[in-house]
């Protein structure tokens, strides 16, 4: 029977090394640990007076953003520059592509500029896979968020943050709270945490925001916040998009905060040394109260700073695999 190219094959070369970074799914524990270790070695670079290493000197990295983003794009750009790569930014309004030029046309035009890596964000699930299937051999694709599917660098910086605070993943109980259904961050976190072998993974939210068949993702589903965070080591809050109110998924931000908003009082149900994470930007008073966001358990700002080291790790790993001296003859 005809075998389709699997996503694992697509991301890894014949030796099992990263050539694209599209999704956590299908990557083994060791690959994730390698990324975390590499990020650890890059984390020191930001503290130096000269915040640059020559790892990707002469490489061209193109940030191809079909969805607006300031923070993610900026951290990718900084990561690339610290690796001494040349960076070009393309912010493409999706409505412009729908006026004639297809995504493939856009891609081929940019490829003609001898880009070595595309960092892609797109509103459609599967867009990064699609681009990876169509780039020339030797060009890498890093997924910076595709629809509801995956945001693997965000998940890895979250793993990095957890490891910094907790060390070993295996005894951890972790809860992800909020809009799981629409969240590419949650999907990538779930794959990463399961690959890293956490003790228990929970998702918490109303039924309208939990995917059908969530159980098949390897999570326990809770609808009550306090019950769900009881005894956990890590709480990951997700951003709630305003448009969820229009789609009849939720009645109001007020009721959401009443039931699933994280407060200092509720936090007492978790372990005393619990850490609270959020991919940002936070809606204060919706997902959590300021006392939690700015409180002693919050590691939210650390997540942002680790984002650069993790992206440096992913970029250098993807591109080093493809460096000319390593290419098979």
């Amino acid at each position, binding site marked *: 029977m005809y075998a*389709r190219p699997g996503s694992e094959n697509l991301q890894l070369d014949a030796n099992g090394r990263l050539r694209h970074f599209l999704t956590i799914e299908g990557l083994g524990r060791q690959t994730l640990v390698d990324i975390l270790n590499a990020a650890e070695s890059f984390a020191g670079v930001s503290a130096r007076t000269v915040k640059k290493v020559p790892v990707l000197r002469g490489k061209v990295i193109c940030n191809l953003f079909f969805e607006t983003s300031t923070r993610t794009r900026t951290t990718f750009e900084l990561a690339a520059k610290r690796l001494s790569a040349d960076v070009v930014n393309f912010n493409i309004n999706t409505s412009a592509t729908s006026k004639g030029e*297809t995504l493939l046309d856009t891609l081929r035009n940019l490829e003609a500029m001898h880009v070595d890596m595309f960092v892609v964000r*797109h509103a459609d*699930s599967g867009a990064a896979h699609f681009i990876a299937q169509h780039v020339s051999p030797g060009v890498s694709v890093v997924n910076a968020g595709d*629809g*509801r*599917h995956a945001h693997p660098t965000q998940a890895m910086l979250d793993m990095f943050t957890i490891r910094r605070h907790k060390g070993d993943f295996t005894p951890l109980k972790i809860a992800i709270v909020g809009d799981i259904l629409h969240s590419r961050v949650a999907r990538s976190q779930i794959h990463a945490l399961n690959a890293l072998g956490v003790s228990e993974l929970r998702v918490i939210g109303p039924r309208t925001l939990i995917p059908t068949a969530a159980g098949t993702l390897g999570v326990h589903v809770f609808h009550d916040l306090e019950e769900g965070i009881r005894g956990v080591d890590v709480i990951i809050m997700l951003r709630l998009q305003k448009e969820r109110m229009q789609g009849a998924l939720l009645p109001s931000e007020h009721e959401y905060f009443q039931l699933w908003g994280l407060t200092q009082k509720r936090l007492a149900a978790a372990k005393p040394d619990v850490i609270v994470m959020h991919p940002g930007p936070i809606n204060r008073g919706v997902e959590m109260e300021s006392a939690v966001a700015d409180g002693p358990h919050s590691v939210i700002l650390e997540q942002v700073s680790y984002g650069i080291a993790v992206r440096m790790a992913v970029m250098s790993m993807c591109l080093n695999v493809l460096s000319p001296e390593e290419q098979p003859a």
Partner: protein
Amino acid sequence: MSAPAGTSIVNGRLIDPANGIDAMLDLHLLDGKVAAVGAAPEGFQPATVIDARGQVVCPGLVDLAARLREPGFEYKATISSETAAAARSGITTLCCPPDTDPVIDTPAVATLIRRRAKQARKARVLSVGALTQGLRGEQLSEMAALQAAGCVALGNAQAPLVNTLVERRALEYAATFGITVFLRPEDRYLRDKGCVHEGVVAARLGLPGIPEAAETVAVARDLALAEHTGATIHFRGLSTATAVRMVRDAQAARLPVSADVSAHQLHLTENDLLDFDAQCHVTPPLRTPTDRDVLRQAVRDGTIAAICSDHQPHDIDAKEAPFPATAPGISALETLLPLTLRLVEEGVLDLPTAVERLSYGPARILSLPYGRLEVGRIADVCVFDPQAVWRLDRETMASAGRNTPFHGWEFTGQVTHTLFEGRVVYRSAS
């Protein structure tokens, strides 16, 4: 003594489900009609003799849903290219849904399609007229005029009616003329922006899901309105186990309700989507293995009386985009018989039943005089080698659309001859 005329197909296994025939019988054709089954008529001197030793001889296949893309989408396919693909696939009658451009909501468009098909001379193309003007679901189409222009059914293609009052009136008005109404059961609100089955795979890939209820809510509504109006309805392309049960119950209650299924739904499931394969992007979406198994069972027990291709040839660009942005549909004429024969191979159907669901079954849904081979009937015949093993290669497809998830699949059973109105319109090279 007169000059030789007509065609004899000899030494084959004749399967004609309408007449309960499955036997080694010769078939003799003259003037586009069946002249005799078994022994040749007195003095019959065929101009052509087809030796069908080791082969199956059956009625030409009848496909209730095949888009030919003309008029309006000739960059995807044409009546000429797709009727040639049909001939190669043993299909002699095609029903064309009304979502052409312009829509088949006037007799002129129906007439145009019929004329083009006549010129192509490869297969019969019957139009399904629009149920509402422009398929907009607002005003009724001129149903009597469409019927007079040869439309064999009415439907709203992939744009199911949202307004239940319009649906009620459309069914009532259609029932006035005894026209069968094709309904694609789908609730637009529940479908929302979904593009795959809402289930395990949607949860993993983060693709917007279409819940089973998008189909079952529509089936329940359509059945209620059919009962209320007395209209004869046909469900085009069921995809869920629950809908099958609802249709079975309605048939048991003697409602004039029929249903078909697209051949790919009997083989593929949501699990085939795992790598965002846009070739598996179809409407209704591929569902669970359980749904597939129940659909197979329904084909076997006759709840689903016809297997369709739901042919939707596309240009290359239509599938070259991130999954949700791709056009749904499969170029499916050339896999209709092979996928159905695979059900025989897998023990789901016996061969006569498989042939029935592709010929007499669909013909009966629309009371068409095709799909059967007794004396006096139109001589539409498909001859296939049930043992031939071959591999589908999208590069050698006859259809202008090469969009298929079955590229590289190995099939057993291949058409060797297709006769349309007594003429050989396809003969395999070997």
